């Protein structure tokens, strides 16, 4: 298989020792096994996420995303930009759409970029790692390197919002996307297809500003996962991962629940199935340890 190369946009949360550093770790191991080469966009900056709107306004948010595009165009010409973070992907894609459709905004954006000595020509292509896996590698490609099938492990595929709406993964439905389930099955695990909260919002950035409201959301998400018979949650989004994992203890305090469900990234599952170590899979980065998976690594 020829090496596939992409311009990598890890995003703030996936940096070293950041909240999704374990995501980064596992993505790197996963890509190694799949012979995918990721080259970080040099000097990339934050996407502004969604909540940046309050102070950021429209054009500044477009500009900071365009800055990443411009850098990618210059330093990694011809390579698709690949984001692992849902917010980074969405922020970038929205910026691209907006600039493609409104020449006025494109003009103003480049005016701003000029101040940083940059210019965006408008021909980057933005993709999420999940798209790369499904479209470029394919499920067969994902299956090939499997050496330790995740036999007997039950996962609820929690997709969340921003990898699903408004763009979503080609061929998937907004209300019932199936790709995580299919990945889990491909890796030999068992997908809880009856899980009915897979696209429920975790509260996103409001986890900080409106904890009660978003923790109610998270409660439903975890509860339904238990109801479906899952042992673990798997997700493609760092914010979803953080919110659903970090606040379980809080929710237990508030609602007297006994939640203790590991929340993992698809990339961690793959790394484990590919024979990676606990460390390579970033399993040591779990607040709620995924013993069942660690056991497989130990095998």
């Amino acid at each position, binding site marked *: 298989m020829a090496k596939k190369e992409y311009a990598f946009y890890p995003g703030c949360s996936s940096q070293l020792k950041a*909240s999704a550093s374990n995501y980064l770790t596992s993505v790197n191991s996963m890509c190694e096994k799949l012979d995918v080469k990721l080259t970080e966009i040099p000097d990339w900056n*934050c996407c502004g996420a969604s909540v940046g*709107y309050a102070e950021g306004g429209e*054009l500044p948010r477009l500009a900071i995303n365009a800055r990443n595009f411009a850098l990618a165009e210059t330093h990694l010409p011809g390579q698709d930009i690949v984001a692992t973070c849902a917010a980074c992907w969405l922020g970038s894609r929205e910026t691209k759409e907006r600039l493609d459709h409104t020449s006025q905004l494109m003009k103003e954006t480049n005016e701003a970029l000029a101040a*940083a000595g940059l210019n965006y020509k408008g021909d980057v292509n933005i993709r999420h790692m999940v798209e790369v896996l499904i479209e470029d590698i394919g499920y067969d490609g994902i299956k090939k390197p499997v050496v330790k099938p995740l036999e007997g492990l039950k996962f609820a595929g929690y997709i969340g919002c921003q990898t699903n709406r*408004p763009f979503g993964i080609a061929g998937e439905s907004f209300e019932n996307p199936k790709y995580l389930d299919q990945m889990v099955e491909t890796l030999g695990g068992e997908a809880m297809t009856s899980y009915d909260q897979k696209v429920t919002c975790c*509260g996103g950035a*409001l986890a900080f500003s409106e904890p009660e409201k978003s923790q109610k959301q998270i409660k439903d998400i975890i509860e339904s996962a238990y109801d479906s018979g899952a042992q673990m949650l798997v997700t493609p989004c760092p914010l979803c991962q953080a919110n659903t994992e970090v606040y379980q203890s*809080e929710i237990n305090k508030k609602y007297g629940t006994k939640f203790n469900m590991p929340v993992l990234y698809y990339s961690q599952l793959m790394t484990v199935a590919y024979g990676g170590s606990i460390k390579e899979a970033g399993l040591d980065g779990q*607040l709620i340890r995924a013993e069942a998976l660690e056991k497989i690594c130990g095998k």
Partner: protein
Amino acid sequence: MTTANQNAVERYRNNFLKEVEANVEEGDMVKMCMQCGVCAGSCPLGPHWEHSPQKIFMMIRAGKREEVLSSDSMWMCTSCYNCIVRCPRQLPITHIMHGLANYAHRLGLAPKGQPTREFGTLFWNNLVKKGRVNELTLTIGHYFKDGIAAGIKTGLAMQAVGLGMVKAKRLNPMEIFGGHAVKDLKGFHAMVAKAQEIEAKKKGFTA
């Protein structure tokens, strides 16, 4: 009343819809709403809205400027995009809500102490400072938004979580002294400043 707000009132007299079309992100789509209410029913935080999106659109058409801009409803948006994908008129509702919130914020009409307003501001300033988000300072800044006492309180409440994150190498105490940043900070800041300047001019903000 901020001068920006004054100007807006002057310029649009009683036609709030025109004002929104000109100054609010995607505001020119507000007029296309047909009041079906699918957005109102699709929002995860729906129960916490005083006015649903579709109702806000009607209020805009009805010229209820103060009521809309001082409302904290838009601030409930979690950016889940359910409303966008279901809207039969394809209104970019999420963005309009963000736009309205930002506009109200810029005019100084947004509710004081609205937590998301404050967190959002904190977040933006944090990312602009270094070009990348510093999760530690962000978190601390957030906990201490209501002053030391409250900060320590929430801080302690979340201590377990915090320590857990540190233990899991997903939160770095050292970040408090610097941490991740873009190398060309100068250029980055110049760019952001420029963008803000253009936008302010366009929308009549006195930046």
